[in-house]
C-alpha cells in the first residue's frame, strides 16, 4: 500500500492510495476509517508520497 498526498481542485489537503484496488481517497477526517488506517500506517514509520495538484 502506498499513500500519496494531493490537493483537491478546491485546495483541500487529501490522501489517495496508489497501486491497489479499490483505490481510496479521503480528507484528513478523523471519522473516516480509511484516514484512521492511514494514520496507523504513518505511525508505523511510513511516509506518503508528496502532494501535487490533481
Amino acid at each position, binding site marked *: 500500500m502506498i499513500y500519496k498526498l*494531493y490537493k*483537491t*481542485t*478546491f485546495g*483541500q489537503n*487529501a490522501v*489517495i492510495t*496508489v497501486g491497489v*484496488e*479499490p*483505490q*481510496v*481517497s*479521503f*480528507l484528513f*477526517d478523523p*471519522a*473516516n*476509517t*480509511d*484516514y*484512521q*488506517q492511514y494514520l496507523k500506517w504513518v505511525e508505523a514509520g511510513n511516509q506518503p508520497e508528496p502532494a501535487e495538484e*490533481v
Partner: protein
Amino acid sequence: MPLILTGTSGSTTLDSSAGLTFSDSSNQAAAASPFGLKNRIINGDCRIDQRNAGAVVTPANGAYTLDRWGVNQFANASKFSVQQSSTVPTGFNNSLLVTSLSAYSVGVSDIYAIFQRIEGYNVADLGWGTANAQTVTLSFWVRSSLTGTFGGAFQNDAGDRAYPFTYTISSANTWEQKTITVAGDTTGTWLKTNGSGLQITFGLGVGSNRSATAGAWAAGNYGSATGATSVVGTNGATFYITGVQFEIGSTATPFERRLYGQELANCQRYLPATYLSAHPGWCYATTGAIFAAPFAVPSRVYPSGLSVTPASCIVYNGALSTAIPSAIAWNGATVYEGNFATTTSAILTLGQSGGFTGNILWTGCEL
C-alpha cells in the same frame, strides 16, 4: 378462556397465550406495532453488503463490513473475519458470519465485537437520559459452533454508560432466537441528532476491563458482560447473527420486513453509492476532469472520501473517445452529492465537457 368469533367462513380465536388465530389458521402471536419503523436496526437481516458483495474480509478495528455493521478488533488485528452468509434460520436469506482466525487469549483491555450504532434521530423518542426512559427489547437469531453464555452491551456515544447483557447458546451449530429486554437508562447523555444515539455491541471476546456485570446499567465503556464466551478464543469458531431487531416495549415482536429498496436507501444514508453512466462533467486539463455524482438519499454527513476501482471506469471526451482513468480522487461533497476528479491520458480538451461511467462508494458517513 379463548374468545371465539364464528362467522359464515369459519371462526377467529383470540387467546391470551396463542394470540389471534384466523379462520385460515394463520396466527398473529404478538400485538402489531402501533407505529411505523418499529425496528431501529438497519440491515438487521444482513441482506445488504455494498462494500464486499458477499466476499470474506478481515476488517480492521473500527471498520465496517455488511452495511451498518462495524467491528472492534482491539488490541490486535486479524483475529476474526466477517462475511455475508446464506446460512440462515427459516424466514431469512442472509446472516453475518464471524469466523475466528486463531485461538487468541484476550487481554484485559481488548475488545473483539461486532456492533451497530443507531443514529440519534432514530432513537430520540426513547427518552433515555430522562425520567421517561422507555423500556426496549432487542431480539436476534444467533448460531455458533460454541455453546455457553455470550455477552453484549448497550452503550452511549460518550462511552460512560453501558448495560451489559448475556444470552445463552444451548446447542452448537443451531439457530436460536434470543430476546433481551431492558428498562431504559434514566441518566447519562444519549445523543438525539445525527451522532451515535445508541450502540448495540455483540461481544466476541472482551477483556475484563471492558466487561461488567450483566443486567444493570453501569458508568463505563463496557462492551460485554463479565465471564462471557470468547469466540476469538477458539480457532475456527463460528458465530452467525441475523434478524436483529431493536424496538420500544417489553415484547419482541416479529421481525419487521422492509422492502429491499427501502432498506437499501436506509443503508445509503451511511454509505452512499453512485452508479453513473456517461455522466457529464467538465475538463479542467487535457488529463483531468471533474464530475458531480448525485446521491439517491441525503447522507448522514457529507462523505469525506471515496472508494472506487478505476480499471472498471471510463472517461469520455466530447468526441466520445475514451480512456481508463489511472486515478479517481475525492474532490468535494455535500450530503446530496459527491464530487470527484479523474486523471487519464491526454484525451480531454480544456474547458469542454466530458463523461464518466463507473461505480463509486462514498465513505466517512458511518457512525
